[in-house]
């Protein structure tokens, strides 16, 4: 087995060994129940493609449920040639590089309006991106000299967000959705994009600000479907967002001109 075709690695190349854990709604009390529960786990493991499978741990949880840990061998092959990766379309820049690019490409401060919309009161995500403090060792957007941040906080109504973005001449609107139920984050994002589009067509020229949404439940591939420009998923750092904003809003100036602009 060489090149693009691989299998999981336990302790020998190609052994295909994996580990899974799951719970089944079966009791684990009497001897008969235990045998039946383990049989049920084996059946699921086999249907999942683990063959042979071994139930190494089974434990009753309350009267009605059993937890299992299973090891087994999968016969599936992974073809690396078929793996597709969405590459980041923008370069990661340091804060100094972001500032320089905004200065030279935009010639003024870049204005960002941020908010949590809908019923979501969890500002932890938007604050981690916007606050000076930032997260994961990266400072937030407030730290960037060439970015002006207006953080509207939580539970901002969409019409208020549109109005404020307009009043602030926002270049970009960042919206965070952390806690969501029944895909509220999807419908909220879609509603927001529609509101900005409607406002932009009412106002005529000028267009709408760049719309960026973020949150752990979003699929970064859904931007077009939601009508926004960019989606950031779980684990996004402030530096990635800043780099994207600079890439999307501040046209790259050839190096010599950039030097000139700095003077």
């Amino acid at each position, binding site marked *: 087995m060489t090149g693009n075709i691989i299998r999981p690695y336990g302790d020998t190349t190609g052994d295909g060994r994996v580990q899974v854990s799951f719970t089944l709604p079966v009791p684990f009390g009497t001897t008969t129940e235990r045998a039946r529960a383990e049989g049920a786990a084996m059946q699921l493991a086999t249907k999942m493609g683990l063959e042979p499978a071994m139930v190494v741990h089974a434990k009753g949880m309350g009267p009605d*449920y059993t*937890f299992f840990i299973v090891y087994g061998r999968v016969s599936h092959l992974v073809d690396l040639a078929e793996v597709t990766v969405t590459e980041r379309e923008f370069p990661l820049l340091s804060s100094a590089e972001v500032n320089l690019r905004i200065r030279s490409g935009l010639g003024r401060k870049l204005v960002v309006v941020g908010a949590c919309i809908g*019923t*979501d*009161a969890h500002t932890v995500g938007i*604050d981690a991106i916007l606050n000076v403090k930032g997260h994961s060792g990266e400072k937030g957007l407030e730290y960037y000299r060439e970015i002006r941040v207006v953080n509207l906080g939580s539970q901002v109504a969409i019409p208020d967000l549109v109005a404020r973005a307009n009043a602030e001449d926002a270049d970009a609107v960042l919206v965070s959705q952390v*806690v*969501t*139920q029944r895909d509220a984050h999807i419908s909220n994002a879609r509603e927001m994009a529609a509101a900005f589009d409607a406002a932009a067509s009412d106002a005529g020229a000028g267009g709408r600000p760049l719309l960026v949404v973020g949150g*752990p439940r979003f699929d970064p591939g859904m931007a077009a479907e939601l009508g926004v420009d960019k989606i950031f998923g779980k684990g996004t750092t402030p530096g990635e967002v800043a780099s994207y904003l600079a890439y999307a809003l501040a046209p790259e100036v050839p190096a010599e001109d950039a030097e000139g602009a700095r003077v």
Partner: protein
Amino acid sequence: MQTRLNLDPAVVREARALAAKAGQPIVEMARTHTTVSVERAVLRLAGLQGADPDGMPWVNRLADAIRDTTGLEHGVALPAWDALLTGSYEDLASLAEAAAQGKVAFRIPAGTDAAAARSAASAALARGIARIDANRVQRQQMIEQTSEPRKPWIYLIVATGDIYEDIPQAQAAAREGADIIAVIRSTGQSLLDYVPEGATREGFAGTYATQENFRLMRAALDETSHELGRYVRLTNYASGLCMPEIASLAGLERLDMMLNDCMYGIIFRDINPRRTFIDQRFSRQIHARAGIIINTGEDNYLTTADAVDAAHTVVVSQLMNEFFGKEAGLADGQLGLGHAFEINPAVPDSFLLELAHAQLVRELFPDAPLKYMPPTKHMTGNVFAGYLLDAFFNLCGVMTDQSILLIGMMTEGIHTPFLSDRDLALENVRYVRDAAGRLGESFVPAPGGFIEQRAKQVLGESVGLLRRINDDGLLNAIADGTFGITKRPADGGRGLEGVISRAEGYFNPASEILEAGNGPVRGDSAQVAAGSLEGAA
């Protein structure tokens, strides 16, 4: 005070004195103001329940009608009971209904009419508070009939959004070893300026706090407590814009612990600082009377700031919570001050730093039922490493004699816990408690060693910050972003429009009863929780 860190008692005294000095002007403000939620709490304590066909509670409709006519500067009680006595209303509910239709001409009564209104209102509130007193007695009887769980108490969360799903989950968790069930609220409830009504089956990442949901869950846990022979406590959230009302409902329905921080709503929910401080004082007076243990939210500071750099902000906030709590009548045994195990595990000596912080808090507040929160920020998705980190959290908790352990989940930040995540988490804490539960008695950090020095450093930084807060004033310090990074100006945030300056002759029959003290019970659960009655006076 037993001390293993050789803390200088003079420094500890100075820290407390500085916290008191910083808090005193806030107390003065709370004494001279009221809020719409405080006034609605008075109506709730007098028994007004239910909502109009749109779901807006009658307490809101009645308080709003009074605010629109006589204003609330004199409190809701005088105009409400005057209207009740002079009109032909059967009860507060029919008065509220008429008021909502604009059919009631409210006034501020004078002379004998005022005396009659006062006396009727006081009698109604005395009945409401007697129910809280009776609940406190009943809690104590329940503990005697079942048993008091050993420390640390194991705290578990349920949050399906549907109270009828929450109930079996909570009962299952109790059977698996949970001593405390917390029902997480629907996100955003803290920013609603009313308390929803009735049993609720839909919420956003949590279940609405309502009086009926409180009653249903407490009844279910009573059943389970008898089944297990162990009293299972129920926790909810007295925070946000309706803090005083939710505290009142907790007292009326015998909840046992309530999240109730003096600054959390300001910092993390952008609720107006004045509104929060006024509301927290009244809500804490209710909690004091009800024998409810409050939980404060300092763990949150460490999720937004670095847990090493910001360790002293936790201590400062705890000292402020202690000052405000005691001023409102809470005993040491009711102060479930919060803190957390949030230091980056990649930091050298991170466990020693955690031990230093946890032991410092234990020694500063020897009689408080401290609530210790598990790692969340550095749970990476590597569930195996996370399980190990949770074990170290549990070990630190038992070594430093923490009173309440919120159980860490190895799948923190990935999904709401699976049944198996919860079961594994309980297995983790049971192992540590059984294997090392008595390690605390032998845990004496080396004099002058790393742990002692770190604890002293954090205490010293706390005193430094308290001095700066005193130079600046607490409201200005909050406006400047001293806590949790965010800047919160005194006139910003939600709910300022619900703050009302009290007029001469302001009357609040609930506050009069609560401030007169004389709750019926002494030496009951809340005090027993910390094994001390000190500071109850």
